[in-house]
């Protein structure tokens, strides 16, 4: 039942497509490859030019940014800010910014840049260097400023910060008469004490699905064991004995059942739900959990408290999260952009922003503010967490770096490779990625 003629027709289709391709190759021969004309840094930036600007950030889940923009626009009718709301997904936000950077589009004047994108955006010339006489970072969290810095130059103005917290069941710990743990060993012994009386409860949970959250959890384990993904000189040190010990702790946790098996599929929400339904005693998560777990419909409302995350031999080291404001070098009206950013970051506005949007501020002093601490009982602990926090690896190819980290950690957690071997492989990969 062969059909040579029909076959021939499909061949013809292929040939037709092929012919198109050939013309393509010819016609494009004369087009010069995108010539380099970026003058992102180094050249003089016009900080006096004012006029309407566009501010782009991810989904405004609090819904309060619009009011903020209106407030500014009322006071500055000639320098109106248009808010361009992007997707909630960090990957999609990054893709939007990259597209505009690649095409040298100045559509977005000010961008809300995730801390891990700074290196990539700055190195590609998609961020304007911010001079210290126009942008004052005095009193800011050192880690936040560091994460917005690339090659000793500030490329973005930290706007919000984020750090990990250890949520725990205060009711159960109180009943057992123990204090929240400072080390992994303490946490284990508390669990050994409490869990026998709690059916279906495991000890600890975090975010171990293969995504950015795993990178955060892995980096925390490594840093908390005294290791580092990248050393101070920016060279990979991820197969050091300390780093291996960090990963080993996570792997052992899965093996011993300290971490429930299903946690390998957990992101933030899954782990929060597990904590709220009494499946785990300790939860590593971001500050957003507090309000939800304390809400009226939560089963654990009033039974929880927070502590800094534990480490191997002492307090743990959190991974730093957060965003900063960056200015596109291709956009007009950088003067207005500067004014808008500095206005958004006044102490008063940061305070209000924490109150209305529950975003952690970047001004260190606010963490000890009595009024705010009353409203946000976790604030002091969070401040402590962020003060000790370390940024994730600064890399131009951050997308590749984080994927390589996830590959190695995930394989080890699933028992497909031994921690030492996984991290040796990761070390080799990182050496070629971070050069």
């Amino acid at each position, binding site marked *: *039942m*062969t*059909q*040579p*003629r*029909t*076959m*021939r*027709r*499909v*061949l013809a*289709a*292929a040939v037709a*497509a092929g012919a*198109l*391709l050939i013309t*393509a*190759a010819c*016609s*494009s021969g004369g*087009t010069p*490859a*995108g*010539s*380099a*004309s970026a003058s*992102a*840094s180094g050249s003089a930036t016009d900080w006096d030019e004012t006029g309407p600007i566009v501010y782009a950030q991810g989904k405004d889940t609090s819904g309060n940014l619009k009011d903020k923009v209106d407030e500014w626009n009322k006071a500055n009718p000639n320098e109106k800010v248009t808010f361009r709301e992007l997707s909630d997904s960090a*990957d999609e936000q990054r*893709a939007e910014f*990259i597209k505009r950077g*690649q095409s040298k589009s100045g559509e977005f004047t000010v961008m809300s840049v995730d801390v891990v994108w700074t*290196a990539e955006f*700055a*190195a*590609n*010339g998609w961020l304007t260097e911010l001079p210290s006489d126009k942008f004052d970072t005095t009193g800011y969290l050192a880690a936040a400023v560091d994460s917005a810095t*690339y*090659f000793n130059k500030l490329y973005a103005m930290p706007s919000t910060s984020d750090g990990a917290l250890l949520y725990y069941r205060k009711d159960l710990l109180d009943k057992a008469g123990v204090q929240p743990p400072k080390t992994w060993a303490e946490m284990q012994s508390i669990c050994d004490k409490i869990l026998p009386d709690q059916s279906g409860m495991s000890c600890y949970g975090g975010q171990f*699905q*293969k*995504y950015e959250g795993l990178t955060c959890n892995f980096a925390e384990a490594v840093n908390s064991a005294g290791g580092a993904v990248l050393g101070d000189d920016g060279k990979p040190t991820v197969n050091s004995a300390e780093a291996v010990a960090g990963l080993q702790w996570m792997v052992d946790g899965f093996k011993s059942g300290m971490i429930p*098996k*299903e946690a*390998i*599929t*957990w992101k933030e929400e*899954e782990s929060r739900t597990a904590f709220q339904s009494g499946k785990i005693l300790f939860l590593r998560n971001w500050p957003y959990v507090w309000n939800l777990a304390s809400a009226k419909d939560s089963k654990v409302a009033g039974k929880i408290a927070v502590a800094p995350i534990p480490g191997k031999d002492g307090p743990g080291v959190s991974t730093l999260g957060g965003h900063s404001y960056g200015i596109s070098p291709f956009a007009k009206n950088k003067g207005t952009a500067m004014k808008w950013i500095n206005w958004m970051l006044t102490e008063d506005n940061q305070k209000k922003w924490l109150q209305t949007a529950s975003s952690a501020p970047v001004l260190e002093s606010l963490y000890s503010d009595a009024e705010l601490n009353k409203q946000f009982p976790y604030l002091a602990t969070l401040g402590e967490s962020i003060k000790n926090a370390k940024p994730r690896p600064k890399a*131009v*190819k951050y*997308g*590749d770096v984080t*994927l390589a980290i*996830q*590959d190695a950690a*995930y*394989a080890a957690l*699933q028992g*497909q490779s031994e921690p030492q071997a996984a991290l040796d492989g990761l070390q080799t990969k990182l050496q070629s990625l971070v*050069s």
Partner: protein
Amino acid sequence: MVADSPATTKNKKKNPLSDGQGSLAALLISPTMVVILFVVGIPILMSIRESVFRKNEGVDPNTGMVAQGETFVGLQNFTDIFNNPTVVPGNWGQIDRLLNAFLNTTWFTVVCVVLETVLGVAMALIMAKAFKGQGLVRAAILVPWAIPTIVSAKMWGLIFDADGVMNKIIGQQILWLADGPQSQWAIIIADVWKTAPFIGLLTLAGLQTIPAEVYEAAKVDGASAWQQFTRITLPMVKPALVVAVLFRTLDTMRMFDLPAGMIGFGKYYVETVSTLAYVENNNLRYGPAAAYSIILFLYIVFVAFLFVKLLGADVVGDEELKAIQAQRKRQKAAAKAAGSKPQLAKTTVTSGSAAS
């Protein structure tokens, strides 16, 4: 020969009044072709150009700035799979990422299409036999087809949650959404669910064109049910089924929404060539991304070609073209006296079956 001439004469008879309508045809076709040139042709050219370039990646050690512009790299984006593999852990061992995605794509295509076809044909047989409830079944069967893939991806994502209803029903905790072999099955189940009914529907239509007398005659001759199925049903629905399977195959090879919406990116067990190209594009490697999508396209063309050659899928189904080609062949055969006989014989068989 016998079957050829009727086909030709039939065609001649078919269009006696439209001969010499080339300019009218050009007028009617050109709007479509212009649109296709703009929305497909030109983007393809741009992609091809992209695929032989690579964005510069070097970082200046003093300023930290990335070198701008692109470099012409020839076919390097295509040959890196052999010369400079990016090794990743997946279902197929430690192999190059593109190769892994390629194998996943192939694996998904084979498993999904086989399951869909078997299930779809079974559904069609049931529906054809049913006296009651046909309308209801047909309504039910269109439900999966009408649900947008991305909605179905989210829906199955919820069903396959670690604490989801699927695990509740089967009574054990399978971590469907973790990056492992089980996630491949999550994808396969969701894809088969959505498309098996579609194949069933097309097969049913094929079944309904078979006259009942044929079966009655077979029964009289003492054919068993299985014999009836293999000797009558399958050959009769084959043309419709093969085309349906071909289009399903090509569609599965491009699979994007389901792994992207349900499991996510960068999961090597479910990474297809489409999602890999998307990820590479997002990582600013436009050259490799374009190269991968071209590889996928060539692969698809190759598979379509195989289908036509091995299974005789009559994709175009145009009688006139068949007739023209048959005529050309006969002319060639006449010119070349020797060695043309087997070719001619083949031709006769095909047009015979295609005419049916």
